[in-house]
């Protein structure tokens, strides 16, 4: 409930990312995501999309400006608070981000087990429910390397929507995904937004999100000259 009434969920205020560290264009990025909003960011280069999501998560050093999440500047927090704050973000990444030494079930539940004191049973039940929602027969227990790419994508969705994420940084999971995933994904997305989460949906092309056009709050393009607002019909 706290996030419904306070200011922007994510605020990029003339944030100039370090080019050396990220490869993002060193130009000011300004954007606001309010609770419940869904912002589509079109990024042709998946690497740039990942770096942009990293910047939103406070992982990219800035030359100037600030990135604030839930009103807190990433650079002004200590590690303990930064980690806790990052625990409020659900992410689906392009790059492989699975620990190879753990079962997928642990990788999925790890974030909730680490950041919260929810009972294990509750977390597992939620993971199992989400797994079924995203088309898995149950919570996958094999190591991520042994899952097919489609199932790994589903597991990624489960991991991103676990708990109550305040911000979703989604690097287009619908690209090259099974068709049935779309419904589950959009349903989960809508549900999260309804609970006050902000969404940044990074896509490679427009075709993917068209089915959800009415739900998109604003549209941006990540180009060499920074973030450019795109008018939506």
């Amino acid at each position, binding site marked *: 409930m706290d996030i419904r009434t*306070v200011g922007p969920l994510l605020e990029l205020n003339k944030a100039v990312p370090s080019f050396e560290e990220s490869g993002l264009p060193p130009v000011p990025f300004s954007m606001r995501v309010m609770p419940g909003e869904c912002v589509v960011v079109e990024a042709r280069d998946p690497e740039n999309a990942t770096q942009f999501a990293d910047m939103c998560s406070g992982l990219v050093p800035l030359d100037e400006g600030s990135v604030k999440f839930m009103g807190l500047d990433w650079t002004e927090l*200590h590690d303990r*608070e930064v980690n806790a704050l990052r625990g409020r973000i659900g992410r689906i990444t392009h790059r492989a981000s699975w620990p190879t030494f753990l079962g997928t079930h642990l990788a999925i539940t790890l974030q909730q087990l680490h950041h919260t004191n929810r009972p294990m049973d509750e977390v597992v039940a939620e993971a199992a429910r989400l797994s079924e929602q995203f088309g898995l027969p149950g919570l996958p227990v094999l190591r991520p390397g042994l899952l097919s790419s489609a199932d790994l994508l589903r597991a990624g969705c489960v991991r991103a929507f676990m708990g109550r994420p305040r911000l979703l940084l989604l690097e287009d999971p619908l690209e090259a995904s099974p068709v049935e995933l779309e419904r589950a994904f959009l349903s989960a997305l809508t549900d999260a937004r309804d609970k006050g989460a902000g969404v940044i949906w990074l896509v490679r092309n427009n075709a993917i999100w068209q089915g959800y056009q*009415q739900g998109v709050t604003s549209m941006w393009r990540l180009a060499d000259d920074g973030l450019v607002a795109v008018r939506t019909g």
Partner: protein
Amino acid sequence: MSSDEIVDPTLQHDVSVRRVLLHLVLPLLALVLGIVAVIVIGVHSYRTTRAGVESLTHELLGAVQHYIAQEVSDYIMPASAGNVIASGMIEHVPPAVQDKVFYSYGGAMLRSVPQLQSFYLADDAGRFVLITRHGKDGKEQERTTLQVKGGRKVFHHDYYTIEGVKTGEADDDAKDYDPRTRPWYQNTAGSNEIKWTQPYLFPTDKQFVMTSSLRFKGQDGHTLVFATNISLNELSTFLDHIKVGKSGNAIVLDSKGRVMAGRNLMQLAEAAGWDPNKMVLDPKTHPVFARGYDHYRVRGFGPRSFSLNKKRYVTIAAPLPGSSEGWILLLSAPESDFASFAKQSSQQSLQFAAVIIAFSLVLAGLLIRQVRRSERNARLLARQNAQITHETGAVQQVAATPRLFDPTNDSLVLTEQLAHVTNAHRASIWRFLHDGSAMVCNDSYDQRQDAHSGGFEMSRSELDAFFKAVEEGEAFIVPDAAVDERTSQFERLVMREAGTHMLAVYPIHGAGSVMGAVVLEDANMAPHLVYFVDLVTAIAGMRLAAAQQNAPDAEHGTQSNADHAALAVQQAADLPATQFDNMLMRAPEVAAVTASGIYPAVAVLVITFSDPVVDGEAETEALLKLTNQLASDVQRIAQERKLFAVEVAGHRLICMAGCAAEEDPTAIIRMADAALTMRETLMAALAAADLEPVFTMGLDYGAAFGGPVGADPQVFNLWGQTVSLAELMAQGAADAGTIQVTERVYAVLRDRYLFRSRGAFFAPHLGLGQAYVLAARR
């Protein structure tokens, strides 16, 4: 922060630590440093002063020592110097007048120098003359000569007054006295220096006497020895009277540590049995002098400091010039005699320091108190700022709600924001029916369950006191609603179920009358929140006023609402009998379905049962029986509500109504009523069989394709988005035994039934929509 989260990132530990460091630790540290500095300076000052005092004490003692040494020299001088003078006088006169010179010198000296006791003159022929004091006070003189009378050696004594007038004479036996055998005579042998004898005591007159003697030659060639007796008693008296500091004193020792002069000399002599050789320093009677003498023996002459019995003493050992060989002057005094002013000064300094420290502590305490207070105020301010932000956000949220003042649009945001801002357990908006006989809950939001409900009705007959209190138009807050007579009934009927205690009631004012009330349960009613509640109350008032204007005749008592379903069934009396498809279908009835096509307003209810777990034949039979009972119940209810058809497909039942070319407004009402009845019946049946409510229900209303399919028998089938959505609703129901409905159903039935908002959902080809749970009839 979510209650589940372990770390709250919004807490700025570093800031508070820095603040504590700045506001508390630093001043305290400064204070402690100040105190330490004062103590160090005090101790240093004390030590410096003490060192100075010690040095000063030594110098003072040195000066005293010089003075005493001089006094002692002066005391002894008449003896030693007198010997030289007298011998000089006597050696140059003819032997005949030697006695005369001796007596006149001796007489003069005895009269003027009190410490001198007597003078001797003897020669190598055994001649001996003596002049000494006589009488009680020693003022008279006695002249004695060794004579031979009648073959015997006698001492002839002549007595004189102080003026030199002879007063008498006497003889006494000298026995075999020979001056040449006396120590004072013998120790001058072979020397022309002044010689001193060991002191010796005269127990009769308690005189402690020493003799100095000098050998010289007379004109007649005889060797003469002139001796002077000097009393050390006078020296002791002198030393006794000398003040060294306040309580110190002096003592004269010889080289063997025997006491020559000093305080209590006579007691010492008596204790030693009048033996001068035993008159040594006893550590028991003279502990300080004994220690000082030890220091002297080890370290030689000079000032020394030491502690004895936790007291500091200063002693100084110095040689005595002009005195007998090896005499030592020993002075002692407590250090405090000299250093007491320094001690006092140090104590004063420490007292000043203590006062300064006490003041500092008081100031530090005040500072800390002030800092704590300002911190508390800062926190309060921050909390108020956060609250203002919170309220501003809530106001924005309310303001941004589309069609806020449209009474046909449910503005759930009002109760939600009320609950959020006041942190109330439950916020609800109640309105009076136009005749004031009852109050109906328009919307009630339970923050803990995040659920809306409404439609409850309270009649004046039950809650007269509460109604009157609201109608008075004044807001009131009751900490415990159960004990207040105005609210006790309200608590029993409404609040007890939620377990709330505190009640805040804000009447909604309309044109000239009270139209309803905003009721908050277990709210945190801070004074600054009232304006937000007033704002929402005003908005609710405008909505209620608009509703009354738009539909003045909408309410005709409660019975009309209750009879909606019956009315709908009556209106549908001419409809064909219910169709039961599949196994339940009566084939000939399908003829009633005349045409296939699109039905514009079909109500579809899908009931989904979860798969039962059976173990054994008996259970299977019981389950089949139960299934049959459930099917029969559904059949019965469907017939009662004149539903169009009920289709059985696996673990699903699909009920439909309104399958006609013309739109049937009663279809959805009948269906909703049937759904509630079915839910009730099914739950009762399942409960009787000791089973959980293993079903969920989904309801949608809209256009659908339908018609009989197949040849013999023909089966009626219905499909389309409405059917899909109803299925979706059934599958995605929040909980077992609930009826989840779409936004379309809610829009049609919201006046007649109670719904809980379930939130937004997404459906393919349909997009975003709201889902509701059908709770009860109004």
